[in-house]
């Protein structure tokens, strides 16, 4: 089976700043992969290039079999993105926002799809409220609904549970697990929440200063760094402590 994401020698340079430095990775279809790294590690830049919002300086990105430099729109129709840092139009109600994006993605039977998402994400009480008047947790659920409106084959999530209380965060994680298992969707998850990554991700890419400095399953990383949780592995990498070579 072809990869959902295939990145080869990807580099992004802004004048003197090297934001992403020659990274390569693959994400198999149906997998959930974590993209970890401190602030400025290059996670958001990488995601922006996967979404074709940003043109790489060099390298090649293939998403769902499409070369993003040649035919990004074929892939964009089958993927979606959610981030608490990218707000939806605030004056529009939730249902209006979902209709806008449903039309942009040409979703068939849109009203039915909106009702399904409202059922699954408990949005019925919010549909007629302006997006700008929702709490952080409600906004996250609405952003997730927007990102799932087109039943994406690939979902890119940038810190989906930051700013959420533990209860809502857990609800979102449980729902993501359920959705991924049910739909077979591929997920690339950028997060600072190591417990979340351990719970959701089958593979992890560790980024630092624009490079992928380590990768593997959570268990492989824990064993390699001789740690009990990914947070300690994250700190080892951030502070330049070396993995123990088996």
């Amino acid at each position, binding site marked *: 089976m072809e990869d959902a994401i295939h990145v080869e020698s990807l580099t992004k340079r802004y004048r003197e700043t090297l934001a992403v430095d020659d990274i390569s990775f693959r994400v198999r279809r149906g997998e959930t992969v974590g993209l970890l790294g401190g602030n400025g590690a290059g996670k*958001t830049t990488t995601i922006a290039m996967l979404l074709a*919002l940003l043109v790489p300086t060099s390298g090649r990105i293939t998403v769902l079999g499409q070369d993003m430099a040649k035919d990004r729109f074929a892939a964009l129709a089958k993927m979606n993105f959610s981030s608490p840092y990218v707000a939806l139009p605030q004056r529009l*109600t939730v249902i209006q926002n979902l209709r806008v994006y449903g039309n*942009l993605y*040409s979703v068939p039977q849109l009203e039915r799809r909106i009702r399904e998402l409202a059922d699954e994400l408990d949005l019925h009480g919010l549909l007629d409220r302006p997006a700008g008047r929702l709490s952080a947790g409600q906004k996250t659920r609405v952003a997730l609904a927007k990102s799932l409106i087109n039943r994406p084959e690939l979902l890119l999530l940038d810190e989906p549970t930051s700013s959420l209380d533990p209860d809502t965060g857990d609800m979102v994680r449980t729902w993501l697990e359920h959705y991924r298992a049910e739909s077979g969707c591929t997920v690339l998850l950028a997060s600072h929440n190591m417990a979340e990554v351990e719970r959701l991700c089958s593979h992890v890419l560790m980024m630092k200063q624009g490079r992928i400095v380590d990768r593997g399953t959570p268990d492989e990383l824990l064993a390699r760094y001789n740690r009990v949780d990914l947070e300690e592995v994250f700190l080892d990498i951030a502070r330049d402590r070396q993995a123990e070579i088996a």
Partner: protein
Amino acid sequence: MKPLRRIWGLMYRHLCVYRGSWPRLLDLAYWPVLQMTIWGFTSRYFAQRVGSDIAVTIGMLLGGVLLWETALRAHLGFATTFLEEVWSRNLGHIFISPLRPWEMLAGLMAMSVLRTACGVVPAAVLAALLYHFNILSVGPVLALFMLNLMVMGWWVALGCTSLILSQGGGAESLVWSMLAGLAPIAAVYYPVSAMPHWLQPVVLALPAAHVFEGLRAAVAHGVIRWDHLAWAAGLNVAWASAAVALFWSQFQAARRNGALMNIGE
């Protein structure tokens, strides 16, 4: 069908903004009606003072007001619809969707047509009621005049949009002033011959000057100046091609420098 659906998605997003805000709806008609009121009384007063044919004087001036408002509203309708996306920091969501850039431009033009109609129709009704000037009396050629002025409004707006992509929200003030700033050399209220000889080539490089020369010929003499219409159309094609090229280059630059991710201020 899918392109039309995506264009409708963009339009629906902006129609929702208007549906929920009566001040925005009022604002669409406010300036055209205000301009019509001022110029209507002014033209009637001057026609009486100088003893010229009131109907022709009012026709020339109010026809000029209505048609210039068509260009201005088309320009603002296009550019401020784009600015709404900048203000709400929504460009990122739009450009990660399958909406093609040309579909976005089509959506902006469609919104511009609706906004222009909301502004110009009330002003035209006011001109008929208060000053007995019926813009439709110009004849079917009116549609060609309006189309040319709307296209001019769009390419000027596309130029402003390109600057916003390049310079961020700081270029916003240009949206409000760019086309209005061309009014003195667009021959809206006076003929090209009233301007200095050295300025006339510049004036005649604008499609609007040819439209208004054509309007004056239609109102004063009942003549359709196809030569002016042809010049207006040809110039619009040339200027619009340049504006599309500028937009495309700035859009690609924004994709290279990351401006689409954080444009907003």
